[in-house]
Structure formats: structure tokens, C-alpha cells
């Protein structure tokens, strides 16, 4: 039975169909359907991967190992929630005149394409194809960011596309170098550019070339993954995009770029047999975490704050992987998942708040949003609690896992730094959110929201999942994660 192909094509098809169907409701239903399908297929893939190790299709053009399967699940869940959320969201936007129906269609066409691109990234066996797919996700999301066609969103989109394209050009350079290294090894025939092949010959690749390749790939994909100091587009794009897109960008897109980066990391480590690439991940991961904190602390814009929080989490994931013990990598992957469940909820809630208060500035949103949007704020509060790493939510556990793994590996300094950075951003987010969510409305404020339940199903789904998986990780999932961690960290 084909698994990977339908995963790839279901959203593609849905996106193209959206060009045809007339109503917004149908478009949104198509998106939900597509991603529900991929989620189901992803679960099937999980079992396949557990059973067979690596699943390949199209004569190894597509291949999925545990890591890919994990990413497929994340993409599916977040995209599903986004599609669920987007219908109501755009109904209100349209009603308010913020977007034209044409733009809404653009969203419903591009989002599945965006998703399909991400699926291709994680399923492509070929590094070049992977690059192309990342570029495709970037391009589709740029248009999504610019959807509102406001000055700020155009500015954000411009920065996103320029920095992203530049980064991807550099990543392409890295890819070229890898290819060169591979072909040098095998001068006579057209070498395979497949991941499986590269890994098999990793030990014989030119280390210098690979180092150079990794530097370019690191800067390139790192830009896309939002590692500081290449992250500068991230808060702009996240804050100006429509909230569903912000959720996708933050929830999975960053991690997809990280996935691409990780592939290079794995390869480099396998080739060099040293911690060369690890130091990069470590340094930049920590730097991202530390850079995020001050920005959160004095942030004035809700979604920008959330974006910086994503920066911090990406940094943490990088650091966790860079600590390079099975435990920390496991923790980092787990963290990726939990973050993917928690962060979209925050962006969805921010979207609701934006539509109700017509601003994202804390100053304008003012205290007492809870009085206007009780359900949204409750869910947002829970998600925020999760995001700042408090139990009972899993992010606490994944953070603790990373920390304990780090200490067990006697990486005390790094662990302490991680902890400090986490504490700093905790303080920032808590202070900022408490300022707006709690309290009473200012007198004379008439912001109220008749449709209090908009977006709640999507948020509840993600939060429910988060809570569920915080206390209960199904054995197959656990196994998958361990395998994925093994793929990343099987070498020193």
C-alpha cells in the first residue's frame, strides 16, 4: 500500500481543488479533510516505520524513517488544527472587511500547498529535492504572510522572502558542496544524491568539503529555522501573518527547517566523527534562547512575543540535540512535539484577540481580555502555562529531560545556561500575559465578542492532545521517538 504518496498528494490535491470550489466553507472542509487524511496516514506510517525501519516509495525517491514519521505527524496535527481554525477566522475577517474573498481563496489554496511542501521536505530522500521543497514552503508561506496586503504585512513578507531566499541560496551552496563531496567519491558515474546512499558512504566523504557544506547549510536552514542571529525575519513574519499561518509557521515550519538542518548535522557528524556540527547547534541554540528573553521582557506586541518564545524553544531544541545524548535528543524531539501542540493554540488565541480588540499591542488590548473572551483566554492561559514549561504539561517534562540528560552527560554549564534562559523567558511571558489576560476592562471599553466559541474546537483539540500526551505517551510513539533520537544521535 502506498503511504508516502498519498501523504504528499492529499494536501496538494486539496489545494488545487480549492481553486475550483466556490464556498469558503467547502474550502475549509477540504483542508480539514486533507490533513485528517494525512494524520491517519501518518499514524499508519508510524506503525510501518516501527515495523520496517525505513519506508520508501518511488524507487527510494521518497523515504521515511522514524524522524520523518514524527515530523509527518506534527505537520498533520498542526495543519489540521489550522484548517479547523481558519474557516471561522476568515469568516470574521471577511465580515470585517479585512480581506477580500480572493485573498481568502489564496489562503485556502496556499496552505495545503505549504503543507504539501513540508511533507515533501521530510519525505524526500534526495537532499536537493529537500532543498527545493523547503524553498517551496518558503515561497508559499511568503504569500500567506503578505495576505493582508497591509503595509506591515508587506514589510514582513519582504523581509521574510529576502532573508529566506538568501538563506536558502546559502543552503543550496551547502547542498552543492555535499553533492560535490559525494561525486568526488564516485567520479565515474552519476552519484546518488539520496540520503540513504550518503549515509552509507558518509565515512568516506571529504571532511573539509563537508565542513564547508555544513557551514552554508547551517546558515541557510538556520535562517529558515529562526536561529539567532538569522532569526530577524521571524518576529515580523509571525506577527504580521494571519494567525492560522503564524501557527503553521511557528508550530511546524520552523521545525521543518530544523529537520533539514538536522539531516546535514547527522551527515556531518557521521562524516567527521567529531562534534563540529554539534558546537554550532549548541552555540546558536543557546544564543537564540538568551536573545529571546530580553525581547520577550520588553515586548509590546502579543504575536511578536509569541514569536520570540518560538525562537527560544527552537533554541532549546537545538541545544538539546547538540547535547547529543540519547536522553537529550529524545527530550528535544519530545519538546518539538509538545511545542507544536502548544504554540498554535497561543497563536489562535492571539488571532481571536486580534479580531476582537483590533490590535495586538498590549497597550491597546489592555487588561481584562478574560472578561471579553473567557474561553479563549482560559485556553490561552493553559497553553501559555504549557509554553513556559510548567507542569502538568509536557514541556516541563521535555525540558527536564533535556536538562537531566545534559547533566548526566556532565554538561553542567550548558544545562545551567539552558535553565537560566528558560527562567528569563518564563518571567517575561508570565508578566506580559498576566498584564493583558487578567483584570477588568477599562471603563468605556466596548469590545465584546458575540462569537466566543470561534476557534475553540481547534484549540481544545491541540490542548487536549497536549494534556493527554503529557501524561501518557503511547508506547509506539515512545518507540518512534527513541528511534528518531537514535537516528540523530547514533554517532558521537
Amino acid at each position, binding site marked *: 500500500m502506498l503511504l508516502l504518496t498519498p501523504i504528499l498528494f492529499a494536501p496538494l490535491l486539496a489545494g488545487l481543488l480549492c481553486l475550483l470550489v466556490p464556498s469558503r466553507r467547502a474550502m475549509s472542509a477540504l483542508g480539514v479533510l486533507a490533513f485528517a487524511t494525512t494524520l491517519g496516514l501518518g499514524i499508519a506510517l508510524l506503525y510501518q516505520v516501527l515495523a520496517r525501519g525505513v519506508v520508501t516509495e518511488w524507487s527510494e525517491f521518497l523515504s521515511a524513517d522514524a524522524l520523518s514519521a514524527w515530523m509527518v505527524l506534527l505537520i498533520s496535527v498542526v495543519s489540521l488544527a489550522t484548517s479547523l481554525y481558519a474557516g471561522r477566522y476568515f469568516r470574521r475577517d471577511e465580515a470585517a472587511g479585512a480581506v477580500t474573498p480572493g485573498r481568502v481563496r489564496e489562503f485556502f489554496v496556499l496552505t495545503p500547498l505549504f503543507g504539501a511542501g513540508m511533507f515533501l521536505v521530510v519525505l524526500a530522500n534526495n537532499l536537493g529535492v529537500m532543498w*527545493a521543497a523547503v524553498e517551496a514552503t518558503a*515561497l508559499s508561506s511568503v504569500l500567506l504572510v503578505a495576505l493582508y496586503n497591509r*503595509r506591515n504585512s508587506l*514589510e514582513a513578507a*519582504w*523581509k521574510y522572502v529576502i532573508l529566506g531566499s538568501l538563506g536558502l*541560496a546559502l543552503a543550496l551552496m551547502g547542498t552543492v558542496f555535499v*553533492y*560535490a563531496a559525494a*561525486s568526488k567519491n564516485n567520479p565515474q558515474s552519476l552519484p546518488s544524491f539520496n540520503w540513504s546512499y550518503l549515509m552509507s558512504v558518509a565515512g568516506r566523504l571529504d571532511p573539509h568539503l563537508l565542513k564547508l557544506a555544513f557551514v552554508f547549510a547551517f546558515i541557510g536552514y538556520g535562517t529558515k529555522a529562526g536561529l539567532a542571529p538569522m532569526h530577524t525575519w521571524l518576529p515580523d513574519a509571525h506577527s504580521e501573518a494571519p494567525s492560522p499561518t503564524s501557527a503553521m509557521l511557528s508550530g511546524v515550519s520552523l521545525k521543518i527547517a530544523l529537520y533539514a538542518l538536522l539531516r546535514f548535522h547527522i551527515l556531518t557528524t557521521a562524516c567527521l566523527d567529531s562534534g563540529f556540527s554539534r558546537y554550532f547547534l549548541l552555540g546558536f541554540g543557546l544564543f537564540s534562547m538568551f536573545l529571546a528573553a530580553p525581547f520577550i521582557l520588553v515586548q509590546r506586541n502579543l504575536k511578536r512575543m509569541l514569536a520570540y518564545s518560538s525562537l527560544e524553544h527552537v533554541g532549546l531544541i537545538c541545544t538539546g540535540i547538540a547535547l547529543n545524548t540519547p536522553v537529550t535528543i529524545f527530550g528535544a524531539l519530545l519538546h518539538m512535539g509538545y511545542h507544536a501542540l502548544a504554540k498554535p493554540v497561543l497563536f489562535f488565541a492571539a488571532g481571536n484577540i486580534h479580531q476582537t480588540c483590533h490590535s495586538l499591542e498590549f497597550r491597546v488590548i489592555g487588561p481584562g481580555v478574560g472578561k471579553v473572551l473567557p474561553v479563549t483566554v482560559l485556553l490561552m492561559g493553559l497553553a501559555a502555562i504549557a509554553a513556559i514549561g510548567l507542569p502538568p504539561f509536557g514541556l516541563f517534562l521535555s525540558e527536564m529531560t533535556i536538562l537531566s540528560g545534559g547533566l548526566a552527560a556532565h554538561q553542567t554549564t550548558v544545562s545551567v545556561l539552558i535553565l537560566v534562559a528558560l527562567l528569563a523567558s518564563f518571567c517575561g511571558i508570565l508578566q506580559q500575559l498576566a498584564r493583558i489576560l487578567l483584570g477588568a476592562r477599562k471603563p468605556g471599553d466596548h469590545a465584546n465578542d458575540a462569537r466566543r466559541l470561534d476557534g475553540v474546537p481547534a484549540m481544545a483539540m491541540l490542548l487536549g492532545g497536549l494534556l493527554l500526551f503529557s501524561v501518557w505517551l503511547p508506547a509506539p510513539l515512545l518507540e518512534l521517538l527513541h528511534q528518531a533520537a537514535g537516528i540523530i544521535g547514533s554517532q558521537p
Partner: protein
Amino acid sequence: MNPSAATEISSQAITLMATLMLLVQLLMTAQRMLLTSIRLFAIQSLLLAGIAALVAYHHNASHVYVVAGLTLIGKVIFLPWLLNRLVHRIQIHQEIEPLLNAPTSMLICGGLTLLGYVLARPFTSMERLGNNTLGIALTLLLTGFFLMINRRKALTQVLALLTVENGVMLAAVALTSYGMPLVVELGIFFDVLVAVMVLGILVYRIRESFASMDTSKLNQLKG
């Protein structure tokens, strides 16, 4: 012509063309007229297509011909045409003062060239054809990057980005005996094409919204 002599000639030609690419790049750094820049980019792309063709011819690799052809169609004809149209539509012909003046820019480009060569030194042995093409490719990348920083108009930034892309392609052609696999090449090609179109759309919309193409005015999003 014996094979080695042919190789020699090809190699010389490729080196020459690569050097010319670099020269074009420097010219772009130094001047300000938008249309000239577009033309220079077209020339640079043409040189790249030439190199690709030479490589294809030399290695008898048919798929590299495709690359050469695509470069010719895409970067030499289609993109310059597209950008030309855009320039006419948005009625802006001249780049405003760059951040750094021409002499300083040239100096920096010189430094970057040096860096490119230094970086490429360990890998010269890998080049089948041409001398130091990799160094030039890296230099193209770096100076293109610098060009992006130095220029403030949205369109010139796009052009600079495309020269970076050229550098990458040059490296791809120069380093690998047969270029990249076709599917990858195609992917890259279409991506670049779409990217430029997306950029074009954005430039157009920015022009509409901001009545300017000065990217230094795109600084509302802070903190």
C-alpha cells in the same frame, strides 16, 4: 585535438568566463542604473549558461545541456524581461545612494574575493575543468550578498540575490563532474523562477503601498 588539449582549452575558457562573471559582478557593484544592472545580470547568466554548456560538452552529459538551456531561457531571457517590465511599470530607474560609496564597496569586494579564494583553495584539486572556478563561485556568492546589503532598492536586492544564485550554480557546475541530478536542477530552476515572480509581486505591492521601493523605509516592524 587530443583530449587533454581539449580539456585544457575548455578549462581555459571556463576560467575566462568565470572571471568575466566576476567582472560583471564588480561592475554591478559599482553602478546604479537599474536597467544596466539587469542587463549585466543577463550577461552574467549568459556566461554561466556558457560554462554549463562547455561542461556538458566536455563531459558529454546531456542533462547539463538542459541546465544550460534552462539558464539561458530563464535567467538570460525571461527574468531580465520580467524585471525590465517591472522597472517600467513602477517607474523607477535609478538606485539611490548605496550605504557605502563605490571605492569602499570595491575594497570590500576585493577582500571578499580574497576570502573566496582562500576558502576554495583546499578544493582546487577537485575541479575537473577551469581554475579556481570554485573560488569565483564563492566570491560571487559573497559579493552578491554584500550587494544585497549595500543596496536599498527592492529590485536591486532581488538582482543581487539572483547573482548569489548564479554563484551557487557556478559552484554546482564547477565542482561536480556532471552537475546536479536533473530532478534537482529542475527543482532549483523552477524554485528560482517562482521566487523571482513572488518577489516581483511583492515589489509591485510594496510600490503600491509605500509609493517607494526603498527598503530602508521598510522599518516599521521593530523590537
